[in-house]
């Protein structure tokens, strides 16, 4: 009984043997030694480390370049009406897109009735922040950061600077318009 069990375990575990047996007819035409293939020479490992180093350098340069390019972006923003903003109840929020269709933003009406809008990207690692009604603050679910809905300032957590503020304008017919965006520096 014990030896049977042992044989069964060996059979299950020896997939190498099974593979060899199953592929026996093809071994002559397509010789393949798994152990040999899995072995990494010192030279190969050195080359791999060299490529990794190149990739890390290119990554750092590309990220820095993109950040610098984005910072130089145009300072002129379009005026865009935020639909249904005038009917927003105090202590609630509304998502919209500004200045482009790709940039999500959040509009908040605080309990005192004032409107505030921010870019929805957390300044830590760009996760989308959401308005937590129970605590009346903007929270980032990724790394537990929080922002003040009145100023966009960091309340706690890893974010290094306040949220990007979106300038609002209330026009004659009570409609709410987004008219600009202001990136804050490190707080």
């Amino acid at each position, binding site marked *: 009984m014990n030896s049977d069990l042992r044989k069964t375990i060996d059979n299950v575990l020896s997939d190498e043997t099974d593979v060899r047996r199953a592929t026996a007819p093809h071994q002559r035409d397509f010789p393949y030694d798994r152990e040999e293939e899995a072995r990494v020479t010192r030279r190969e490992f050195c080359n791999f480390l060299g490529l990794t180093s190149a990739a890390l350098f290119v990554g*750092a340069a590309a*990220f820095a370049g993109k950040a610098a390019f984005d910072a130089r972006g145009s300072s002129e923003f379009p005026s865009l009406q935020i639909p249904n903003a005038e009917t927003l109840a105090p202590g609630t929020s509304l998502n919209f897109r500004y200045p482009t269709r790709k940039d999500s933003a959040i509009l908040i009406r605080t309990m005192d009735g004032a409107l505030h809008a921010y870019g929805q990207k957390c300044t830590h690692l760009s996760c989308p922040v959401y308005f937590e009604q129970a605590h009346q603050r903007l929270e980032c679910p990724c790394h537990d950061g929080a922002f003040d809905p009145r100023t966009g300032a960091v309340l706690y957590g890893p974010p290094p*600077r306040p949220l990007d503020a979106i300038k609002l304008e209330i026009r004659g017919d009570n409609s709410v318009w987004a008219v600009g965006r202001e990136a*804050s520096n*490190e707080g």
Partner: protein
Amino acid sequence: MKVEAKRGIAGPPHNFAGKGRTAVAQARLILLVMVNVAQLWILAATVEAALAHRFSALLPLVIASAICFGVTLTLIYWWRPSSRRFTSTGYLKE
């Protein structure tokens, strides 16, 4: 016979040169890994600096990463353990 023993032909094999080469090769590998780890840290710092809009830190970080890459290249292409068969002056003679 004495001369042969000195040359290591007749006596038991003492592969000091081989051990030395292995040590140099391992040290080279360890240095490469350390440089890679440093570059990984630099990349993380670059991402954080970019998201925090600390633009003045970006250029030094990229330069540091470039220096690390340069060090890696020198380690791979220049800092090799010397060959047993060749020296800077030519073939080793028996």
